[in-house]
């Protein structure tokens, strides 16, 4: 049956297990195993390249050889389930959490989450930023009732470790790795206002405010939640900054 043959061939491509396929294939010369190996190498190497492009910081932190071993394990246990490969690798951060050789680097999964978030933002739907002048028309007594639609590219991140700092010091243009305090938590967001993905560290109260607005709370409720966490939360400046960034696409009353 064609299906069984294809299943056997997929096993060759993904894991180089050739036994089931061997009786069905032939070559005019040389060893058939070597020829099957070409399909395995093509599949594995092309998928390692996909993961390497999505996770350059992880690769830089752990080194090429470690990354290849990690990627190989991931590919054989979590092969792609659809052919648009820019979506492949979304569960690598969780996989890293369970990958024993990476246990010495407990910050790695969260840094990987930041990298995947940037990939998601890069490929997310386009949207136009809300024109701040339109908010000026809202009567003062109704400001607290405003609800926002946020950009489809916005992603919020909160971590017990300094993921944004770790990401920054592992960029290709950084050749000296400075001291990083790994016990310092960081929260922030990723956004793609036009064609370039940006990220920024924000205080936890700002993240709480953004999280509330993203889940549909009013500006009044979101601000109260932020103030409860930190009573110096500055609504005016934070709102102005996010209107300038393009975080919001529309508002409702």
């Amino acid at each position: 049956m064609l299906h069984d043959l294809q299943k056997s061939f997929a096993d060759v491509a993904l894991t180089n297990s050739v036994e089931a396929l061997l009786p069905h294939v032939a070559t005019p010369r040389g060893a058939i195993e070597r020829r099957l190996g070409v399909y395995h190498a093509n599949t594995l190497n092309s998928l390692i390249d996909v993961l390497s492009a999505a996770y350059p910081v992880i690769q830089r932190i752990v080194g090429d050889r470690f990354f290849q071993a990690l990627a190989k394990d991931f590919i054989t246990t979590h092969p792609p389930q659809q052919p648009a490969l820019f979506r492949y690798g979304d569960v690598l951060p969780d996989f890293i959490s369970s990958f024993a050789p990476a246990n010495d680097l407990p910050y790695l999964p969260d840094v990987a989450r930041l990298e995947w978030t940037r990939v998601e933002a890069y490929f997310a739907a386009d949207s136009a930023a809300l024109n701040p002048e339109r908010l000026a028309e809202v009567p003062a007594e109704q400001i607290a009732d405003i609800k926002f639609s946020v950009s489809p590219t916005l992603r919020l991140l909160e971590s017990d470790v300094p993921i944004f700092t770790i990401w920054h010091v592992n960029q290709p243009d950084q050749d000296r790795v400075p001291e990083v305090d790994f016990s310092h938590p960081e929260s922030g967001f990723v956004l793609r206002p036009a064609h370039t993905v940006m990220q920024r560290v924000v205080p936890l109260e700002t993240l709480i405010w953004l999280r509330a607005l993203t889940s549909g709370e009013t500006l009044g409720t979101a601000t109260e939640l932020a103030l409860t966490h930190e009573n110096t939360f500055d609504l005016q400046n934070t709102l102005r900054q996010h209107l300038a960034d393009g975080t919001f696409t529309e508002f409702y009353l």
Partner: protein
Amino acid sequence: MSDFASGTPSAAWVEIHSENFFAAGGPRIAQLEQVREHYAISCHGVGLSLGSAQGVDADHLSTLRTLVDRFEPGLVSEHLSFSVVDDIYVNDLLPLPYTEEALVTVAQNVDQTQERLGQQILVENPSSYLTFVDSVLTEWDFLTALSQRTGCGLLLDVNNIYVSAENNGFDTTAYLDGIPGDAVGEIHLAGHSLEGDGEDRLLIDTHGDNVADPVWSLYQLALEKLGPRPTLIEWDTDIPDLEVLLGEAETAQRHIDSVSSSEGSSRVA
């Protein structure tokens, strides 16, 4: 691709890998919009898996239809191969046994694809490193029957013919004589690499080098049999300077010009 977004290089059309543009938005699609202002687009898929026993994926076809509606490609093509089994996607173009069962499967999948897209597709011959003991048809007879049953066109990859013939021991002239010339809507050329010697000699389809001399000769022979055809140079890995690519395109154009009648219209991309 940024060179092509500005419209500077001379090329008849630009061929994309369809699945690279399946995202909801972002810079890639924006850049393709710019390319579209200067060049015709051809959508060349690598993930539809026309040979899958489980059939082609309806969501995949819907996304492809959206892409086709948006960019109105002159040609839509896919491969005679499979890459999806039990909803696992193997990122390679795996070969099919040339049996009646496989022919029925591929024909159904091609029918469904052409129906969903509302247009003819071209199906490309793969490069392969082995044959199946169950095969009862040659690759050219399989492609001929597929084209007859579905009305699909053929995308003739001359490098793939050469690579497969060298690896599996068949006659390239018999291949060119065997395919229905009228069905061929496009030709691909690419580079390959040679690994091993003697018994271990194997040609690998890399798309990462200049087109080899014997492939140019086979291309000339194909053009003499088929007449001029739109031709694309594929170069996906170790991509060289644009001048090198355009040099290969000029060589292909010289071959086309050598067989063109006064109104030869085929171009190289």
